[in-house]
Each structure stands twice: as structure tokens, then as C-alpha cells.
């Protein structure tokens, strides 16, 4: 009896310590919901909304220069929630694309719904797991592989509102965001042949999985039907070095966004592909809390954002100094810089099959290898929120 007393407690102690370590590690992995439960407002049925008689377009329309859905200013009217609700929303980075959501907070439209929104800056791929675990309510960013993979691994995330498209997308007489190339990389610099873009070196921070590369290829395919994306040489360059790489000849083409492309709107460079006409390639995503737990709150959020677009961000809002000032403050950019680009077309609608087309292209390019067929739209998109807000389902 006494001989084992000395050795037994020691091995027991080891076991105890090991269990404690395991328990700590374990609790770190499992997270509970962060927000206290909210008293749920019930979600109403879709009813017509005054002011939004033209608040819907044909979701399959992708023509150049098409007009977005719009309601009158101030519509849809607020329907404040019975109790104040605080939301946590991420944006991928501070840019004009996020103006509808940012201004909804700073100009008081969320407040009218009894909502208040706290913003964080987070890449979409980090936002999605947080949304699925309830630590984040919504995210604003581009469509990318993280969204498609999210549904595949069973996370509850949906795109519920579109963000924007450039009004002149598809119109090559207008300088804008898109694929910019060095003229002297072409055999005939005065009139560059789009077919040759296949042989040039494109720069990308994330290989062929960037949405910029996606739309550039999709646009070029309209003029070069047998565009071979597989053979395309994409050079890995960190985003911070992209413009340097383009200037130094390390790469021949790069996707340049507002306002970066402005420095390249010179005779040495040429715009070879714009964004896709009439098709937002980004969205507001909702997580589990707004999709399943409290959809009425989601509806309030959608109403506020849509109302902001209709009231402040409709038409050529760059001509409105107070709106420009509000945007400049929200995204921390000087008004002068903002004024060098043209107004974006904010669009809360989601085009039919945007996600399907994007996945198919990625599958064809071998960017997506984990599955062969695109995840269907109903698993990625939920139009009910803007349908409730505008009172239009078709």
C-alpha cells in the first residue's frame, strides 16, 4: 500500500494537468453566440410599398447602360423595430462601394429603424466564419471563393443585397476601373488587339481566383470567343506592389480599381476590359443571426440601406456636395480625390445567376477543384430581403 503512494499521485497529477490543457484548448474551439437574444419582431408578408412602384427590374437584364431599380427619395418608409438593436457589420475595406451601408449609419437611416451599426474592417473570408458563429451580423464585400466554399462546408451565409456597378461598364470610350495594360506590350500599340491579352502577363495577389481576373476574362470573351484562360500567365504580385510591377514591366496588365486607375489613364496604357455591364460583383452578406434568428431585423437593415440609396446615392450624386462630404468622411478619403472619379451606380438587386456564372468560370480555370458543378443560387443568394423592402417580387 505505502509503496505506491509516492508514485500514484504523481501519475494522477500528470493526467489532471493533461486534462486541464485539453479542456482549455477545447473551450477555445467552441464558441457560443456573442449577442444576447433579441426579442424577435415577427416578419411581415410582402406588401406593396409606396414610392417603390419602379423598385424592380428584370433580374436577367445585363445590357450596357441599363438603369437600376429605384424608388422615390425617402422610400421605403421606416418601420422602426419595437426594441433598439445593435448590429456588427464588416466591410472588406473603406471604399465608395460601401457608401450605402456607411451612410445609412452616418446619416441616420439606421436610426430611423431603431438600429445602430458598428463597423469593422475584415476580409470577406474572415467575416464569413464569424458570421456563421454569430459574432458578426453582416458583411460587405466582393463575391469570392470563400462564399462558395462556405455553403459547401455548411455555413449559413447568403448574399442579400447587391452593391454597385460602374455606369459605363462595357463602354470602352470611358476611362474607368478595369484591366489596364501597357500599350507597348502589344504588337500594334496604336490599336491593341484584345486576342493578344491572352499571351500577356497579368498581375494578381491571389492568382486566378480574383474577381477582377474573372470579370476581365468574362468581358474579353465577348470579343475573343475562344479566349484560353487556362494558358493565361498570372504572376503573383502583392497588391502593394501591383502598380510598381505594371510600371516596371514585370507585368503587362493589372486590374486597377478606383482611384488607382486614374494614374494610368495616360497614352502609355490602355483599358482592355471593363467591369461587367449592369452586374454588381459584390454584395451585402447576411449571417445566421439575420437570416434565421431575426429576419425582421434583416428587413429593417435592408430598408435602411435601400432608402439611403434612393435618397442620397441616386443618379449623379458626385454633384451633391453634402453627399460627397458624407462619403469622404465615411471612407476617410479627401473629397478632391473622390471627385476625380464618376458616381457609381448603386444597385441593391442581385442579377440572376451571377454566382453560377462566376463559379463556372472558376471551375473551367481550375481555380475551383473541390467540386465540378456550381453550388446552386438558392444556397448562395436570398432575395427576400430586398423584395420585402420594396414590396416587389417580380
Amino acid at each position, binding site marked *: 500500500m505505502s509503496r505506491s503512494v509516492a508514485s500514484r499521485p504523481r501519475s494522477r497529477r500528470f493526467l489532471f494537468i493533461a486534462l486541464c490543457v485539453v479542456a482549455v484548448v477545447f473551450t477555445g474551439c467552441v464558441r457560443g453566440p456573442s449577442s444576447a437574444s433579441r426579442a424577435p419582431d415577427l416578419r411581415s408578408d410582402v406588401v406593396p410599398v409606396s414610392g417603390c412602384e419602379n423598385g424592380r427590374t428584370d433580374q436577367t437584364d445585363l445590357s450596357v447602360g441599363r438603369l437600376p431599380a429605384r424608388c422615390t427619395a425617402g422610400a421605403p418608409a421606416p418601420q422602426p423595430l419595437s426594441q433598439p438593436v445593435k448590429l456588427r457589420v464588416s466591410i472588406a475595406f473603406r471604399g465608395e462601394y460601401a457608401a450605402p451601408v456607411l451612410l445609412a449609419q452616418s446619416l441616420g437611416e439606421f436610426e430611423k429603424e431603431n438600429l445602430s451599426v458598428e463597423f469593422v474592417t475584415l476580409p470577406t473570408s474572415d467575416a464569413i466564419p464569424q458570421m456563421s458563429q454569430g459574432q458578426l451580423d453582416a458583411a460587405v464585400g466582393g463575391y469570392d471563393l470563400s462564399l462558395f466554399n462556405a455553403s459547401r462546408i455548411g455555413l449559413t451565409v447568403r448574399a442579400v443585397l447587391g452593391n454597385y456597378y460602374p455606369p459605363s461598364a462595357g463602354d470602352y470610350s470611358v476611362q474607368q476601373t478595369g484591366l489596364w495594360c501597357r500599350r507597348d506590350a502589344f504588337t500594334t500599340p496604336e490599336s491593341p488587339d484584345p486576342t493578344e491579352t491572352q499571351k500577356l502577363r497579368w498581375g494578381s495577389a491571389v492568382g486566378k481566383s480574383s474577381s477582377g481576373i474573372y470579370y476581365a476574362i468574362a468581358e474579353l470573351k465577348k470579343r475573343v470567343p475562344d479566349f484560353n484562360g487556362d494558358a493565361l500567365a498570372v504572376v503573383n504580385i502583392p497588391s502593394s506592389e501591383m502598380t510598381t510591377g505594371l510600371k516596371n514591366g514585370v507585368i503587362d496588365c493589372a486590374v486597377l480599381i478606383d482611384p488607382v486607375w486614374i494614374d494610368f489613364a495616360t497614352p502609355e496604357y490602355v483599358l482592355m476590359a471593363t467591369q461587367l455591364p449592369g452586374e454588381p460583383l459584390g454584395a451585402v452578406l447576411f449571417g445566421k443571426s439575420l437570416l434565421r434568428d431575426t429576419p425582421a431585423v434583416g428587413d429593417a437593415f435592408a430598408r435602411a440601406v435601400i432608402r439611403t440609396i434612393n435618397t442620397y446615392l441616386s443618379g449623379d450624386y458626385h454633384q451633391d456636395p453634402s453627399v460627397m462630404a458624407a462619403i469622404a468622411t465615411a471612407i476617410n478619403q479627401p473629397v478632391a480625390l473622390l471627385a476625380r472619379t464618376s458616381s457609381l451606380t448603386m444597385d441593391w438587386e442581385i442579377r440572376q445567376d451571377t454566382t453560377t456564372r462566376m463559379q463556372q468560370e472558376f471551375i473551367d480555370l481550375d481555380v475551383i477543384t*473541390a467540386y465540378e458543378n456550381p453550388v446552386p443560387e438558392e444556397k448562395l443568394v436570398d432575395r427576400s430581403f430586398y423584395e420585402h423592402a420594396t414590396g416587389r417580387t417580380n
Partner: protein
Amino acid sequence: MSEQTIATTTNDVVLKRLPGPAELKPKSHSRRRRTIELSLSIGVPVALILLWQVSSTREWINPGLYPSPTDLLRRTPELFSSNAGGGMWGDVGKSMYRVAWGYFWGALFGLVLGIWMGMSRLTRAALEPLLAAMYTVPKLALIGVFLLILGFDEKPVIAVIGLTVFFFVWIQTMTAVMSVPSGYRDAAISFGATKWQLFRQVLLPGALPQIFIGLRVAAGVTVLTVIGVEFVFAPGNQGLGYRINTARQILDPGQMYVAIVIAALLGVLFTWLVRRVGRMLAPWAKEDEG
């Protein structure tokens, strides 16, 4: 002898030193202790893996975000046979290439400069303050500078890795050469050794065990650094670090964990290799050296 017992004061206590369980049954006790230690070394990692497996399959944690070990095993052959971007083989190959070349150049310069500065007071005085200051600069932060100077191919990657390895190897080598006991030098000089003979016959073998410690530490650091650099910049879009980072960005945790495990294995393998070479070249070194 008188019958009377010698009285001791009742305040005294007798302190006994007796054999304990280890002493009474030394053989079985030591066998038992070895068994416990062995079972813990194997048992704890196995238990953690089992816990992970169970938590994932039973969905105590989200299996989409935290795939179980069996999920990872199942995913591995598919990742390796994939052709897209060279698949996992391409990533492993590229990372190994960077590890090998970065280590080679860094170790080469580290050894040369370490030996030279260890032997020459003048060189030490000239270069040590400079090198000591540069030692603490995080080399990863210099990747941007190197990209500009050397271009957007493998060269800046090899340079950053080589630089990191260089500093580890240089400082260990220099100290090793300087710490060769003066008695060894005296003996050689007293027998008429030339400078070259002193170096080859005494300083080099004398410093070898500690030099290998430096080489071994540098080996582990190399793999870490390669992964880190590939997070920022991976020429050809290949590399384990690139794979880990990309998999995280597109929300493919399965791919990410597989790449992490392979990177860890690469590190272990490489360090083990350097250690083996060290034992071969310096067999006289004590167990925890070289």
C-alpha cells in the same frame, strides 16, 4: 553494561532516513517509471488527436471549419494528385527548393564569415557592430525592398531566407571558433603548427559541435521563414505557405490543415537531417550538441 537506560530529553525527535519505494524495489520501480513516461509521450498526442477526431465527427465543433483527422487523410491524396497549379506536389517541391537554396547560401556565408571573424580580431572589430545591429531587423519586413531590387521571381525569396539563416549560423560559428579552449591552441602552437594547420587541425574540429548547433537551429528557422515569406509573396503561386494562406482566404480549412501538417513534417525532417549530418561529422560531440 548497566540495566539503567540512558534517559534522553523528551523534547528530542528522531528523524528517520529510510529507504523509499524506489530503493526497495529498484528494478520494478524504474521499469514502471519508464512505462509511465513512454505511455505519456505517446498517449498525450494520441489522446489529443482522438479528441479532435471525436469533436469534429460528433459536431461539438463545426466539422466544416475544423475537419477531423480522417477527413484530412481522405483529402490528402486528392490534393496531391490535383493538376491545378501543380497540386500539392508542386507546393512541396517549391517550398523545399526555397528551403534548400536559402539554407545553402545563408549557411555558406554564415560559416565563412563566422570562422573568419572568430579567428581575426581585426575583422571582428570591423564587422561585428554592424552585423549585431542588423541581427535584430526582422528579415521578413525586408521582402518589399528585395522585391524592388531583385525582381519578382525566386531571387528575393532566397535572399530573405538566406539572410535569416546567415545571422543564426554566423553568430554561432563565430562564438564556436572563439570558444575553442585556449589550451587546444597552445598545444598546437607549442608543436609548431602553422596558421593553416591550427585552423584545420584544431579550430575547425574544436568548433564543429557548436557550429552544428547553429546549423540545426537555423534549419528549423528556415522552414518557418519560407512559409512566412510565401504568405506575402510566392513566385509561381506555389509553395506550402502560399497554399496555407490561400486555403484560409477561400475558406477551405481541409486544404489549409493538410498543408500545415506537411509544412511541420518538412521542418522536422530537415532538422533531423542536419542533426544526422552533424553526428556523422562530429561524433565526439556530447549527446545534446551537434
